[in-house]
């Protein structure tokens, strides 16, 4: 019977009956242990989207040729191997393009200061807040200028068809982990609206992920137009173009837009 005198009756402002204390002490300990175990096991089940890095502890300064392709890119000679060139995407702080700083200095030899964002073979630089880009006083090796000018000229690799996810390059390349997918969609949208280079993430047959920067067929930025497609799996046709060591997919107006 329920309303029985044998059942202890608890009144909040009176002392708890002994019987109830004997019930609650082990129960509270059990719940405490379960909270600890729950936190640990749910945490352990996460998965990293790395390896990727955003080195925010100190800035680096790179020298090279600044291009708008249409996204700001610094082409430079690999400091460890003078026979190689490197193409470094530039972005601003927050969820904004570096265009504002870069466009006036297009085609000039510059020094750029910022925080490296590194994933696989990709390097991106998030501009430092204060005077991030300067024209270099003088070009130390004029030959470098012409090497970089040549290597960064655009080469068509023909028509291709890819399917993959539309992402914002900044978060994906290392600012956030994870920096893509459904949970990240809203953020990618804000980034693309801010002009961060749009990227198509394609899973290759070798199981590796490949990134292609997306542009209009005339080579202009397509980020804002793709914002509401962020995190979506899409199929795109276009022309593959190489500039420096970056690959661009120039997509037709009928594609995804």
């Amino acid at each position: 019977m329920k309303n029985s005198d044998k059942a202890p009756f608890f009144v909040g402002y009176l002392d708890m009956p002994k019987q109830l204390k004997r019930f609650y002490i082990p129960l509270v300990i059990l719940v405490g242990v379960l909270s600890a175990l729950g936190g640990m096991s749910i945490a352990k089940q996460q998965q990293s989207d790395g390896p990727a890095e955003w080195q925010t502890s100190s800035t680096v300064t790179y020298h090279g040729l600044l291009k708008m392709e249409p996204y700001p890119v610094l082409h430079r000679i690999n400091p460890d191997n003078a026979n190689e060139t490197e193409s470094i995407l530039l972005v601003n702080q927050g969820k904004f393009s570096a265009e504002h700083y870069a466009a006036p200095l297009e085609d000039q030899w510059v020094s750029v200061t910022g925080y490296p964002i590194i994933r696989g073979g990709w390097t991106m630089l998030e501009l430092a807040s204060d005077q991030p880009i300067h024209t270099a006083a003088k070009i130390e090796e004029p030959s470098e200028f012409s090497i970089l000018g040549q290597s960064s000229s655009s080469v068509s690799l023909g028509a291709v068809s890819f399917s993959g996810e539309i992402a914002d390059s900044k978060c994906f390349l290392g600012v956030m982990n994870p920096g893509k997918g459904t949970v990240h969609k809203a953020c990618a949208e804000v980034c693309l609206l801010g002009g961060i280079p749009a990227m198509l993430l394609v899973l290759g047959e070798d199981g590796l992920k490949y990134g292609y920067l997306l542009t209009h067929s005339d080579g202009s930025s397509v980020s804002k137009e793709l914002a509401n497609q962020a995190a979506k799996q899409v199929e795109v046709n276009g022309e593959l173009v190489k500039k420096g060591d970056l690959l661009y997919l120039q997509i037709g107006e009928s594609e995804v837009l």
Partner: protein
Amino acid sequence: MSHTFVPVSWNPRKRVYDVCLWICIALYIVLYVSVTNMFFQQEDAISTLIVLMRAFSTCGFIMLTFILCIGPLARIDQRFLPLLYNRRHFGVSFFLIALIHGALAIFWYHSFGDINPIVSVVTSGGSYGGVGDFPFQLFGLLSLLMFFVMAATSHDYWNATLGPLWKSLHLLVYPGYALLIIHIGMGAMQESNTGILPYMVFISVTLVGGLHLYSALFHSRQSLAVEQEASSWVEVGNWQQIENDRGITVTVNGAERVAIFRYDECKLSAVSNVCRHQNGPLGEGKVIDGCITCPWHGFQYRPEDGRSPPPFTEKIETFKLKLEGNVIYLDPKPLPLGTPREVTMITTTH
């Protein structure tokens, strides 16, 4: 105002409750973050804010699951009633934890851009048709707003001011929970690496649904159903079925409303079954120090007149009883709040 406002005040039991609760919350979050930092390092480190967002969100979801289980548990086994006693602190704590999660998400994912973060939460939709492209944040935001309304009105002042509306308002917890399931199911669970989340949601829904179903089927409030015939008095049954200092609940013509108590061995009193505080089931209470005591938060009423002992001023409806032999008869017409009536004495022997 429907009646005077008497807050259930602080006391040591509530403090113990809150301390236990916050120790569990702290254990969960600290261990979540430490284990993540231990397993995911350097190039594989998951962004700190995302880790916090996940720690607080899963903590909140588990808390809400507990909160929703307390009601049916207390119904199934009265030993769980003390959990119900301070459930509102549990509720407000849950809201704070969920708020931190929502705020972190808005800060991290929706800020630092050209658009207002809140606008971004609402518009970063995508299509409702597409899985993986579903505006799951909006569902989180809506449920957070519902929990906000509940947390903000959780104080006894609002309970007293809003009257029956309060109860309906706080039933929003169920739609809020449903919105959260959509929030998680169409958001984090759409990722390829969902980890343990689907299990967490499955266990939660099974527990909440199962306990509600079980308590509804097997532990509905025990009450004696009687029909009122033409005559005004209805037969309730033998007084010996009521234990001393305890009550039974009587349903007259389907509406549950009368609690009949036996106290001092030989006295009988019928009062409304509905506590003035938060509609607690008085019939499941007990007579303590000569007063009918509500099982939920311990409000007290004198059996003689349905009034709280001074300095309190709550009043409940009283009912007339009469005895014929061992059989109790009830006049189901309620007397005005706090009306004294003759105490029914049991004169027959056991």
